[in-house]
């Protein structure tokens, strides 16, 4: 049975560290598929103007296309070029919740994310996405420093 590892990407250098660690794990496991997930932070309970609502579908498609072009496709192409089995996806929602639910639905044995180093006030008050993931995930999580 092929093992699966879910990697959280955010387009930053932290994502590269997560990919590097996941590659090490995949090499050790052998038969392993790497799944890269880019989450566009979004809430169904946010407030928008009528004009934004009318344009929302168009913008959503543009956001997904941009995330694929700039983050997911280059990462997947690089992994495939190195001989790894890999695929990617882009989703809208809450980062920690989506990493967890995707890992569960895909049957991944582990989630790999990297510490983003966010030291802003919001993260101090509400905690970071990685901290939230570590506390709530149903699947083992590795946080790369």
């Amino acid at each position: 049975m092929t093992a699966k590892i879910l990697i959280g990407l955010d387009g930053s250098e932290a994502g590269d560290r997560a990919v590097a660690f996941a590659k090490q794990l995949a090499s050790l496991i052998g038969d392993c598929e790497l799944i890269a997930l880019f989450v566009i932070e979004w809430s169904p309970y946010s407030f928008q103007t009528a004009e934004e609502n009318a344009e929302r579908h168009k913008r959503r498609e543009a956001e997904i296309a941009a995330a694929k072009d700039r983050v997911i496709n280059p990462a997947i192409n690089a992994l495939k070029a190195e001989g790894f089995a890999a695929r990617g996806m882009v989703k809208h929602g809450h980062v920690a919740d989506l990493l967890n639910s995707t890992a569960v639905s895909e049957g991944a044995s582990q989630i790999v994310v990297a510490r983003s180093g966010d030291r802003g006030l919001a993260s101090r008050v509400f905690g970071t996405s990685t901290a939230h993931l570590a506390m709530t995930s149903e699947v083992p999580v590795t946080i790369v420093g």
Partner: protein
Amino acid sequence: MKKSILNGLALLPFTAVPAFAQEGGSIDQAVNEAFAAATGPFVNFIFAPIPGTSFPWIVMWLVIAASVFTLYFGFIQIRGFRHSIQLVKGDYSDPEDAGEVSHFQALATALSGTVGLGNIAGVAVAVGIGGPGATFWMILAGLLGMASKFTECTLGVKYRNEYADGSVSGGPMYYLSKGFRERGLPGGKVLAFLFSVFCILGALGGGNMFQANQAHAQIAGIVGDFPGWITGIIFAVIVFAVIVGGIKSIANVTEKVVPFMGILYVVTALVILIMNFDKIGWAFGQIFEGAFTGLGVAGGIVGALIQGFKRAAFSNEAGVGSAAIAHSAVKTKEPITEGLVSLLEPLIDTVVICTMTALVITISGLLIMDPATGNFVLDGSTIKTVGDVSGVSLTSAAFAQGFSWFPYILAIAVILFAFSTMISWSYYGLKAWTYLFGEGKTTEVIFKVIFCVFIVIGAAASLGPVIDFSDAAIFAMAVVNITGLYFLMPIVRKELGSYMERLKSGEIRRFKH
């Protein structure tokens, strides 16, 4: 041809105002006189009484429609209520649609267009003329109006236009033309045309001038009297920056602050009511007694009823058709779901928020009563108040009885509500405008410039002519929209039957438990 008409319309307010200004002295006075003269016949027609009575036919029109829809859909506001909450919570939203417009977002956007001055100033006008009894009729109108909203918003989603680039346009103009064609009925395009004309007038009236006017009244109340056109120009520049300049940061701040203000308003009202817990029973007594006796207000029971229904319709816009434009952007394959969600709008707007305002005004004791008769003391057609206040000032004074600092918060809330309502209505008006004149950058900019010019006129004119025109324009939308809804309601019933059957059978799946 279209362009020359548009250019002429755009220039009209610029050319009319200076001409009057030279003759009449102050700019405000000139604007006011010109405006009252131009809109008088239209206002008189809309508010004409039913022959032999003092009851305006338009109020009867709205009440009958809301009652017909309530009966026709088997009290949908009661039997669909639980499911509408589940829909707003996202229980039936497909996770694959994340990132699209949710039911909550469509509802919140529509509410930001309706929750505002109608809830603060409008209720004070109703209670100030019709007494506490007007509240009873306002609540009843809100409850019945839920069925009107359900009907129009379902049709708004069903017949919306979805363009190749993924953007959407919906509203009465689309369901009137497409729905009538589908049913093989004539006249759909004529109704759509008329609706669009009245929607543009409504956007310029209630969605713009009334807001600018009351925002100026609030600012003048704090900093002292100064010419309205100054407030108008400041507002016009900010609105222009958002709707023409596309400066999203202003709209973004408003989107975040307005819901907070709404919640703060309701919480403050609740705290005042809790502080005066012993008077709540008495206040409800006044509301019921006033509803059926009038408690001495001008026009008696009918006076209270007219004020209640009028202000409810102006506040929650049920049957007007504007909400159908706002709700049509939602992501759903089932138009009925948005209809069910939209019925929460009159409930939140009128039954909850307006009632809070009315209760606070009633328990404040600002409405002067004759202890000997138990009836209100009248000053002309309005109830005499402590400090001689009316409109927003009455609400402000009533809240100040609980918290002396609240008028400052209320002033900020009024200005923000006015601003967010203007942004919402600029969009509704624009959709009607592009329906008439076609989509395109130039056409859109012409409407947006006209919209900004009317902000200045609204802030400069006095409340009487502005409120009359605002009401008349919005009710004129309801005349056309409701006529269409009567012909299209069988389509909604068919959709509802099919949806409820599939919901019962489990074909429509719940994603969250």
